[in-house]
């Protein structure tokens, strides 16, 4: 998907499907997701709560509960990741590929010293002695910018602030110099000021080490200018996928547009209303045949409810699953018709969007 890099991608995910057999039925949490990630590159996965971002990440990390049904292929540097999982490969996760989680308050073991938690990877995977591991752990804490790093080694997580804890988590993840780091909303639980520090730190470390990264967030603002590519997910599917610049300049999917309207932008007139996307994501058990976003979409036409759009190309490496893409003639016409009607074919009240920082008419360049 990134045209400039040749050769094999580091991570190649093809038609990934994940279902959970629950008492209510099969929850289709991820439904046909594909992407490639090249060494040293970053991919942002963006979507509302429940769109399947974490499940995608956990599938890659082999962290799903045993009742999960996984289909599709995940290749890491030519190795079949699901095969590795079946063989209980010991030195892959945590070594080649690792993950950090949303809440640093809960991702550290409360009863173990910080130093031990970092050192254990070094001991288990790299066979370091107790002392070597401890020294290296200290170095890692320094790397992630923790003051008085040596002293922290013998502290417990509850003695550290949230920002410091997330740094410890990052140090833990970096211990074995992984080639891919998956960061699942690494800053959502932190103060706004701390958020930026952590994101910058991740960028910096990634750059230094030539590590690839998947940055998961529900906030388009977080990935803007930070990732090489972006995949927008909704109801377990890919809605739109492009390199970051293209996505922000010529977004095609109404869902992407709606997501963007939920975050404040500097170029907005000062009193622009921020519009939460009306409605809720669909139930993932009985998925209706049409586009999952249709009931909440300003661009929807009758066809959207009947037939699910497939991912189609819009120029190089830009794909979007929509019958009436934003900024195309068809899209502009569909929205205009709905505005005239006052409601969409799915019964969505267009009045909800009045005064919103809409971008549809402008087409936002090409």
């Amino acid at each position, binding site marked *: 998907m990134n045209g400039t890099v040749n050769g094999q991608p580091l991570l190649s995910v093809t038609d990934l499907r994940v279902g959970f057999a629950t008492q209510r039925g099969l929850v289709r949490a991820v439904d046909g997701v594909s992407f490639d990630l090249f060494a040293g590159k970053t991919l942002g996965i963006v979507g509302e709560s429940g769109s399947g971002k974490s499940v995608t990440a956990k599938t890659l*990390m082999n962290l799903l509960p045993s009742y999960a049904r996984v289909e599709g292929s995940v290749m890491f540097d030519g190795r079949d990741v699901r095969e590795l999982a079946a063989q209980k490969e010991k030195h892959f996760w945590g070594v080649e590929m690792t*993950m*950090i*989680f949303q809440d640093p308050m809960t991702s550290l073991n409360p*009863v173990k010293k910080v130093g031990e938690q970092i050192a*254990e990877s070094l001991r288990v995977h790299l066979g370091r002695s107790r002392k070597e591991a401890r020294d290296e752990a200290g170095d890692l804490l320094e790397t992630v910018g923790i003051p008085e790093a040596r002293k922290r080694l013998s502290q*417990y997580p509850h003695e550290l602030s949230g920002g410091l804890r997330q740094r410890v988590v990052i140090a833990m993840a970096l211990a074995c110099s992984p080639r891919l780091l998956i960061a699942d909303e690494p800053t959502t639980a932190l103060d706004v000021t701390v958020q930026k520090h952590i994101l910058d730190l991740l960028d910096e470390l990634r750059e230094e080490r030539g590590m690839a990264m998947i940055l998961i967030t529900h906030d388009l603002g977080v990935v803007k200018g930070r990732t090489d590519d972006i995949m927008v997910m909704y109801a377990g599917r890919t809605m739109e996928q492009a390199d970051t610049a293209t996505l922000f300049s010529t977004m095609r999917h109404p869902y992407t547009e709606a997501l963007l309207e939920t975050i404040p932008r500097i170029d907005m007139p000062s009193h622009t209303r921020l519009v939460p996307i009306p409605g809720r994501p669909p139930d993932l058990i009985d998925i209706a045949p049409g586009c999952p976003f249709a009931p909440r979409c300003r661009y929807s036409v009758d066809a959207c409810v009947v037939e699910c759009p497939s991912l189609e190309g819009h120029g190089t490496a830009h794909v979007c699953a929509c019958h009436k893409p934003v900024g195309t003639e068809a899209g502009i016409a569909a929205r205009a018709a709905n505005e005239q009607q006052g409601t969409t074919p799915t019964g969505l009240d267009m009045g909800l969007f009045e005064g919103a920082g809409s971008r549809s008419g402008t087409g936002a360049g090409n």
Partner: protein
Amino acid sequence: MIRFLARRLVALFAVLLAVTALAFGSLNVLGDPLFNVVGFIASVDCDAVLAGEIEDISGQTAGGRGDCEVIQAARKEHRLDRALPVRYVLWLGDIVRGDFGTSFKNEMPVRQVLADKLPKSILLMTVAEVIGIVIAVPWAIVAAYRANRRFDRASTVTSFGLLAVPNFAMGIILFYFFVVRWQIFPSRFEDTDLAARLKSMVLPGLTLGLPLAATYQRLLRTDLITTLQEDFIQMARAKGMTDRWVMFRHALRPSLFSLVTVFGISTAGLIGGALVVEQIFSIPGIGRAVVEAVIRDDFPIVLGSVVVIATGFVVINFFVDIIYSLIDPRVRRDD
């Protein structure tokens, strides 16, 4: 940590004072200590006898003062002429010096009775707790590792089964098979050497220990399942730690709270259970001694046992508090 321990110790002594005061007070107020010492003549109105208004009941002694002399001597000896709080303090002083008084019935020093009976009961309870823990911990770990799978379901049924059987029934069943039928274990407590003592404790220990194992297994399994869903467990897995490592190095310790708490509390229940079990397996322990003393109104023995048992309970729970702080550093905070 020092401050934490100091605070715990102060609490420990406060609880001990309260428990001893309650035990001493209730036995003195609810029962009639004088009656327990001298028998029915306790009801003689000595003031009237001394004033020559009435005769005492037996009237054998010259001057007709025999009963009253006995009563007065008893009053003095047992300090019944003093106010209750004063008696309590003096009694507490005796206890601290190791003087538990003498049995009303056979004039044996209570201390000697306790020294004879107590070790057997302590051995029984220790064996029971060890059996409980040793069975429960691996059992809970295996069950939680594959929660809601076949083994776990079977263990749920088994543990509820064990809990549903009353102590005496379990004891009698074990006794019947292992003593009467197969004659593997002795029918009564054999006090010859440690091996014999331990062997005599196997069945009584199982009788008390199996239900304990079931309780502990339930608690630890549930806590383990909860812990295994925590983010830090996912994080440890994401670091590539094996299931075994995650279970033993990450999940087990933070899951021990309920187990440890109930371990502390269960010692009280064990004392009750010991009464029955000592009876079935003919162990001359403190349980039987207390039952006999209560039946015979042997006031000093009852009080002495209560004090020792309560102290044991409080001390065990003091250690439970310390174990908490070893499990979780957050408990140690000095605030």
